[in-house]
């Protein structure tokens, strides 16, 4: 029953949007009716999504999708997250988020009505494209042809609280760019000359970017403790796909900051708006077509791939075509020679676009090579590390001083203080690393990170009157975001450059000493949980003869899908993570791998600060 409701409301939602677009040529809707139509389509899409979720919650195995991806013994939260843990459901989630954005955008006031209508019409067209894709190739409401009592289970690796919320947050980021895209196209169509659209675009771009940041970080954190490889970023194709719209979005948010009447910037913003959403759809295509191998690959299907490739082609091609034909003529060239905020931001934008293109090339290169030569290659960490990072470094350097540059003049306030600060920090880091282990990337990263934080603090203190209220927070918000980046850079540098890996073969009761921590493998236990069997090694961590931690690491065995997952045990300290992996048992000994990951927590703290400042930025008028 719920499947029927779900399908009918989905089909209705698409039909309403088709009706809206066709009838819009003949009927001049007044604002209220127009909004009503848009919102009813949103409501039906969301209803459709919740009926699928309901089918999952009650384990309705007469729905083929539920049968394939769920199991009655699964805990409730994973039944719910099972809704989007598969191709069909995740596409429906995609569409629902598109509808939610449309709904909220339809509430926007203080906007040229013609412009708003145009934006919503483009949003509706996107809804139709993706809606048809779901109905024809990825219908989650198919009826199961056989009567069964039990489902086939969900990929156990996806049974994790972090991963349950990772896709919705990530999609909220990806799909949010649709509004930015629609705004840009609508702006080109209506030749919108007033500046309102910049503020409106800024808000939506910032919301999307903030969600995307959170989504990527959640996925990364999940990979860190669930995959059990000791790292948090693997340059997996799907990670790259999310990084591209993230960087492009970053460029967009920054361009919007300075787009006060500069024609060329307007052009650039429109370009970035189209690019961000194009990259999001491209990412959806790459993941959903199964064209790339990665931990995210679901069963692939060529017709599905071609359909979504077509959507990507239509959306992106349409976007850039309109841009080509209707883009505003630039009038005022920017003076790049002066050292001011505008030129710093322009240079940063250029660097970010180069970085995006570099990642794009590395991501699609295997496809091109395989088509041309039939060889299968994979482009991994070494390529990205040695290309993307050097491109980003000058950007990071600029970013530390950009907020203090003035908009027009060449003067820098307190220039001497900053130069002095930079020299002192560089010297300190150099001496410190000379006394411990010297590593070029390590030194560079540390100097950058500490410098960004210090420079941001100097400018907060020297430029604003400190009083404790929200207004101040809004004013210093860019600095706060940059402090977050600085902290994350320190975390990224230390955890990748200075990490250590130790292997042991241990029996119960054995003790080892790693750095200053005494670690004892106390006990190995096997227990039966609701839908899996758990093997856990219990480690006691002792420092200065005091027990400071008790960490469980091990593996889970899921009988329904016959899969084993690694459950890393992580002992968090502010300056490092001790990361335990339990391997195979041989001759009464357990193979234990221990990573010392310094300053990993800084990455998550940095990201949290960025997300926080993203939301503060949204509130800014």
């Amino acid at each position, binding site marked *: 029953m719920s499947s029927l409701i779900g399908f009918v409301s989905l089909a209705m939602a698409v039909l309403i949007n088709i009706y809206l677009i066709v009838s819009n040529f003949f009927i001049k809707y007044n604002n209220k009716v127009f909004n009503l139509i848009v919102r009813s389509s949103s409501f039906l899409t969301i209803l459709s999504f919740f009926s699928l979720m309901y089918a999952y919650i009650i384990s309705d195995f007469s729905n083929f999708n539920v049968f394939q991806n769920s199991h009655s013994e699964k805990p409730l939260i994973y039944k719910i997250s099972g809704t989007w843990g598969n191709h069909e459901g995740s596409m429906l989630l995609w569409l629902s988020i598109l509808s939610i954005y449309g709904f909220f955008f339809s509430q926007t006031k203080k906007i040229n009505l013609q412009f708003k209508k145009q934006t919503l019409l483009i949003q509706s067209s996107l809804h139709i494209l993706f809606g048809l894709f779901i109905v024809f190739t990825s219908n989650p409401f198919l009826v199961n042809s056989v009567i069964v009592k039990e489902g086939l289970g969900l990929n156990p690796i996806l049974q994790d609280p972090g991963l349950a919320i990772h896709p919705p947050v990530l999609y909220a980021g990806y799909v949010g760019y649709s509004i930015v895209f629609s705004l840009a196209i609508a702006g080109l169509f209506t030749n919108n000359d007033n500046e309102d659209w910049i503020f409106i675009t800024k808000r939506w771009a910032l919301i999307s970017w903030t969600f995307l940041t959170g989504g990527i970080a959640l996925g990364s954190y999940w990979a860190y403790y669930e995959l059990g490889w000791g790292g948090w970023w693997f340059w997996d194709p799907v990670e790259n796909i999310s990084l591209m719209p993230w960087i492009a979005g970053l460029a967009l948010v920054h361009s919007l900051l300075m787009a006060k009447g500069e024609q060329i910037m307007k052009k650039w913003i429109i*370009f970035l708006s*189209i*690019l961000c959403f*194009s990259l999001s759809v*491209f990412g959806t*295509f790459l993941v959903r*077509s*199964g*064209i*790339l*191998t990665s931990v995210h*690959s679901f069963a*692939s299907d*060529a017709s599905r*791939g*071609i359909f979504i*490739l077509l959507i*990507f*082609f239509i959306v*992106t*091609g349409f976007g*850039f*075509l309109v*841009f*080509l034909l209707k*883009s505003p003529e630039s009038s005022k060239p920017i003076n790049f020679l002066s050292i001011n905020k505008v030129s710093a931001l322009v240079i940063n934008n250029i660097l970010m676009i180069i970085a995006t293109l570099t990642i794009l090339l590395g991501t*699609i290169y295997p*496809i*091109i090579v*395989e*088509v041309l030569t039939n060889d*299968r290659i994979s482009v991994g960490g070494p390529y990205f590390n040695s290309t993307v990072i050097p491109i980003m470094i000058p950007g990071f350097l600029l970013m530390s001083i950009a907020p203090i540059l003035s908009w027009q003049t060449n003067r820098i306030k307190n220039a001497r203080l900053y130069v002095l600060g930079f020299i002192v920090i560089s010297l300190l880091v150099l001496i410190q690393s000379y006394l411990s282990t010297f590593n070029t990337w390590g030194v560079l990263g540390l100097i950058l990170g500490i410098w960004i934080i210090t420079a941001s603090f100097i400018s907060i203190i020297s430029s604003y009157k400190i009083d404790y209220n929200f207004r101040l927070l809004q004013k210093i918000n860019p600095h706060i975001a940059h402090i977050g980046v600085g902290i994350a850079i320190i975390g990224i540098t230390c955890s990748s450059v200075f990490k250590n890996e130790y292997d042991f073969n241990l029996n119960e009761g054995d003790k080892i000493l790693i750095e200053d921590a005494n670690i004892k493998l106390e006990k190995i236990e096997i227990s039966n949980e609701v839908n899996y069997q758990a093997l856990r090694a219990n480690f006691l961590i002792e420092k200065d003869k005091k027990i400071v931690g008790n960490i469980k690491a091990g593996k889970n065995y899921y009988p329904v899908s*016959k899969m084993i997952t690694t459950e890393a045990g992580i002992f968090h300290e502010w300056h490092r993570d001790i990361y335990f992996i339990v391997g195979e048992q041989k001759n009464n000994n357990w193979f234990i791998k221990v990573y010392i990951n310094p300053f990993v927590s800084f990455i998550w703290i940095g990201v949290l600060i960025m997300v926080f400042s993203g939301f503060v930025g949204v509130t800014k008028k």
Partner: protein
Amino acid sequence: MNRLIILSPLLILLIICLFALIYLLSNKDPSKPPSALINKNVPNFESNSLYEINNIIKTQDLKNKKVLINFFASWCVPCKVEHPLFFEISKNYPDLFIIGFNHKDKSDDAKKYLSEDGNPYNFVGVDSDGMIALEFGVFGLPETFLINEKGKIIYKFMGPLTKEIIKNEVVPLL
């Protein structure tokens, strides 16, 4: 010049879409990498018959025979789908020796499955702990291998066979 810059995103888009389309149409599937075992010797194995514990089959027994090896299990739904096709193969190619390895299964379940759906195999080997599948690099059930008279693996297919695949890919090798 300016026009060219604005045109470039469209050009890049076209190139990407073109390559992606060729890739999709050429039926390449990244989740199915070419097997490293193709043109290699059959891995060493030893397995007893499902019906008779003392009846043992070894790698050496496959010499001078064309052999088709299929990994299956009673719990594997797609195996059930491809199952009837083996009757056709065995009818059309009586010289072909067809081995079914019963993978990680209970012997009673397997016997019941073969009595209900029929037994197209010349020999049903037991692989209860999955070690033989491991040697063959089996990724998931069902999986089918073709071995020539010299004991080399000449073909491998992951997933359920279909009539088209048998006609286009398996038959030419028989």
